[in-house]
C-alpha cells in the first residue's frame, strides 16, 4: 500500500539518483558541449563556435544543480525527522529558488549564441519564481507554527 513514508523514500531515492547524475555530468561536459556544437543549428546575436560558451554554461548550471540538490537533501532529511516548519527549510527553498534563477540567467546568456536557449532560461526562471512563492508561504507557516507553539 502506498503511504507517506514510501512517498518520502521515493523522493529521497530520486534525489540521490539525480545527485549521482549531476556529478557524472560534470565529467562529460566537454563531450556534451562538443556534441551540442555539432548538432546545434540556429541563430544568435554572437556568431562563432558554441563550444566554449556552452561548456562554461553547462559547468555553471551543473554547479547550481548540485547546490539545489544539496538543499533538497537537507529539506528531505528534515522532513524525515518530522522537522517541517523550521527556518532551515525556508532557507533551503530560498537556496533552490536562487539556484534556478541563476541557472535561468546562465541560459539567457547562452541565448546570445543561440536564441533557442531562451526557452530553458524562461523555464528555469519560472520554476525559480514558483519556488520563491513556496518559500514565502513556508516562511508564513513557520511564523504561524511558532505562534501556535507558544500559545499557552
Amino acid at each position, binding site marked *: 500500500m502506498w503511504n507517506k513514508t514510501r512517498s518520502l523514500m521515493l523522493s529521497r531515492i530520486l534525489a540521490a539518483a539525480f545527485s549521482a547524475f549531476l556529478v557524472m555530468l560534470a565529467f562529460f561536459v566537454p563531450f556534451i558541449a562538443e556534441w551540442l556544437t555539432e548538432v546545434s543549428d540556429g541563430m544568435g546575436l554572437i556568431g562563432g563556435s558554441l563550444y566554449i560558451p556552452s561548456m562554461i554554461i553547462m559547468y555553471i548550471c551543473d554547479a547550481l544543480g548540485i547546490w539545489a540538490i544539496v538543499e533538497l537533501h537537507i529539506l528531505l532529511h528534515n522532513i524525515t525527522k518530522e522537522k517541517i516548519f523550521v527556518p532551515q527549510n525556508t532557507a533551503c527553498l530560498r537556496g533552490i529558488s536562487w539556484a534556478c534563477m541563476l541557472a535561468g540567467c546562465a541560459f539567457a546568456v547562452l541565448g546570445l549564441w543561440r536564441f533557442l536557449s531562451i526557452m530553458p532560461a524562461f523555464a528555469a526562471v519560472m520554476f525559480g519564481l514558483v519556488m520563491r512563492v513556496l518559500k514565502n508561504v513556508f516562511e508564513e507557516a513557520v511564523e504561524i507554527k*511558532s*505562534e501556535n507553539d*507558544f500559545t*499557552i
Partner: protein
Amino acid sequence: MMPIIVNLDVMMAKRKISSNELAERVGITAANLSVLKTGKAKAVRFSTLDKICEALDCQPGDILEWEKTE
C-alpha cells in the same frame, strides 16, 4: 520586544505557590508555565487565563501588564 509583561512570578510569590503546584492546578506542563513566566509566550488562551486566575485568586490585570514602547 513584546509590550505585554507577565507578572506571574509576583502573583505566585504573593500566594506562596510553587511553579509545579500552579502548573498542576491549571492543567499545563511546567515547561509551558515557564514559557509563560519568562515572557516567551506569544498568546494565552482565555481558558488558561481563567484557570490561572482561579488558582491564584486574582484578576487578569494582576498577571498581565501593558507597557508603552517607543
